[in-house]
């Protein structure tokens, strides 16, 4: 149990700079989702199942999904802009 706790804490500690240093938003969504899962795992190991469930639904699914949708919408807008520009 002790070992698991330390491992989950260290994983989160290592993953956080990883997310920050992924400068391109699209891969960053993937790392963020993974980071969210790691956090959820940590909550679970630290006996916080309620929080773990929230974290999985929000941090690992909903938030990356919203970012992905926002990115798609922005890309679409930029493409339309370019098409209009080329015409």
């Amino acid at each position, binding site marked *: 149990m002790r070992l698991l706790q330390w491992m989950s804490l260290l994983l989160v500690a290592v993953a956080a700079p990883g997310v920050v240093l992924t400068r391109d938003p699209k891969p960053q969504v993937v790392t963020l989702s993974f980071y969210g899962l790691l956090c959820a795992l940590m909550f679970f190991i630290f006996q*916080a199942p309620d*929080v773990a*469930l929230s974290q999985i*639904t929000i941090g690992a*699914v*909903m938030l990356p999904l*919203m970012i992905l*949708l926002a990115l*798609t919408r922005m890309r679409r807008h930029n493409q339309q802009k370019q098409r209009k520009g080329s015409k």
Partner: protein
Amino acid sequence: MNLRARTTLFLVSAAALAVIFVLAFLDLPPMGDYRGPYGYVVTQVAVYERHATDVVNAINYDYRAFDTLGEEFILFAAVLGVLLLFRPDDKKGHKRNSNAQEQDELPVSDALRISTQAIMGLMIVFGFYIATHGQLTPGSGFQGGVILASAPILLYLAGNVGAFEKITSSALVKVAECGGAGGYAIIGISALLAGTHFLTNFVPLGTTGDLFSSGTIAVISVCVGVEVTGGFVQLTQIYLRKIVEAELRKKS
């Protein structure tokens, strides 16, 4: 200020901040040495007083329910804000495409369609289960609501764009969001009418461990679930709507 200057400034202040943090944290009780008293008292009395077995939810929806009321209205205000931001051209686009909703299927393989629909059914059942069993097991209205809100997206993934559009832009979503949030506050006010303090339990507590136990905790949890479903459906649908419109236009 350019990037380099900002980074240097940050590094200097971060170093100072790190020293302060380390110094202060060394004096905290070490991990695993929880001193209380809040946790000790509440775990002793919660099950007895509130007939709820999940103490976290007993705190969230009863002892500190007023916090949760604020929290739900944070979500409510954020949804209003997002709707406000996307107000003008979305309205036009919506009108333009309301007739295009009849032809609604995008080409995807049958295997994908059937499996996503099966998963969607599972998610809905699971979301309902989580949202209604908040007082007994981990998870509550909030988590259940988020699960329910992500179900329609599977519909979109399965290529059933028209159905997605129909479900997510119906007035029901709005009713759910406002009704859930308002209902929570109304439950609080009802306690005043019953002659006690705001958000006091005023319904029978039931038997500990039953589905219909713990009084207002279960009711509030369901309210929150309804609101969160409505709120998050709107949040995701706002982005998807534009994309959906473009795809429908491409097809017609």
